[in-house]
């Protein structure tokens, strides 16, 4: 046990002495919003980030992202007499993805980034009182590129474009079509 600890301490000491930074001691979060072409809706996202390697030219980042958007729905009910009536509802889409990102530093203030990720898309249907009616879970993948600017020591702002691959989803007995889409986003973040 003692030997293992000494080995770990030695590795940590070696890596901290080198120019590059390992072990994910850098992290941060990014909050942003954007617009996806299909279905032509806005969305918001939050990234929790960690840097696994960084030197003066590149950084390798991993981040967990929550991306969500919402759509209006119309629920159809059948009454006792066989007559139908309708009510408003919401369909919420929540994407949870794990992503890898390569960041290329163009200057001390600006960098270019690109990467990809995959995860699940949770689709939930609520009535107008936010009572859950039905849900579905599907695969979602994404690839993204963009530019990032450092603002001061701890803040960043970025502009990017991403392509989302989404599966069709099913709610109640209805199957809905989704199209792979391109999306554009703006965001700000904090690094620590």
């Amino acid at each position, binding site marked *: 046990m003692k030997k293992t600890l000494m080995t770990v301490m030695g590795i940590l000491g070696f890596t901290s002495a080198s120019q590059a930074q390992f072990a994910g001691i850098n992290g941060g979060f990014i909050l942003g919003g954007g617009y996806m072409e299909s279905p032509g809706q806005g969305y918001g996202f939050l990234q929790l980030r960690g840097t696994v390697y960084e030197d003066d030219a590149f950084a390798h980042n991993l981040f967990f992202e929550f991306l969500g958007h919402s759509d209006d729905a119309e629920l159809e009910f059948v*009454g*006792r007499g066989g007559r139908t*009536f309708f009510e408003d509802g919401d369909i919420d889409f929540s994407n949870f993805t794990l992503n890898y990102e390569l960041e290329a530093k163009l200057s001390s203030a600006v960098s270019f980034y690109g990467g990809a990720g995959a995860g699940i898309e949770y689709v939930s249907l609520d009535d107008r009182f936010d009572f859950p009616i039905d849900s579905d879970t599907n695969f979602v993948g994404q690839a993204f590129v963009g530019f990032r600017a450092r603002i001061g020591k701890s803040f960043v702002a970025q502009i990017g474009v991403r392509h989302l691959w989404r599966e069709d989803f099913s709610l109640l007995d209805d199957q*809905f079509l989704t199209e792979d889409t391109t999306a554009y986003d703006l965001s700000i973040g904090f690094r620590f």
Partner: protein
Amino acid sequence: MNKKPGSLVSICVRVARFLFFATPALFLASCSGSRTVGADLKAPPGRTVNKTVVDSDVFIPNGSTLEVLYSSRNRYFVEAGGALLGFKKGVNRSKIYAEKGALIPNVASQFGFTIYTVKDASKSYRDRYKELLPADVQPPNVNGGMVTPVVGGGVSRGRWGGGWGLWGRSGYRGGGSSRPTSVRSSSYKIKN
């Protein structure tokens, strides 16, 4: 050392005694305000009503004023000459369908609202479920609305037939299915 368990017991007794007296008091206080929950409300003409409104549809005719303390998941239908004011304690997911000439909150200062301009707020209120009642269901009121000020609470939010206490939704759905049979999305097409 011997004192510790005694003081611990004393603290527990005091906390339990506090909770015993405080919980009913807080419960009564929470119910004692003027509230409308899960109901349909028609503001009395020529009068100002001040209340908290949750999960309700509210019609405000010409000459009536409704001052809302807190609003959550409501739909307001405001005629020209009607006034919807207040919201000192906040707004959450509420919609206003107002005629031109209606006095409604300044959108810039209120988050949580979606405002629609309608030609006839009275008709919008009447048709809020697209008027497809099953034949064997008695409408709640000939005038298309029902004054149901729920003072002192006692109306908890339940599912169909369970706890709404008012004519509410189970009645309106005519004892038919509490689960929608199908759903339409405003942005996603159904697969053939």
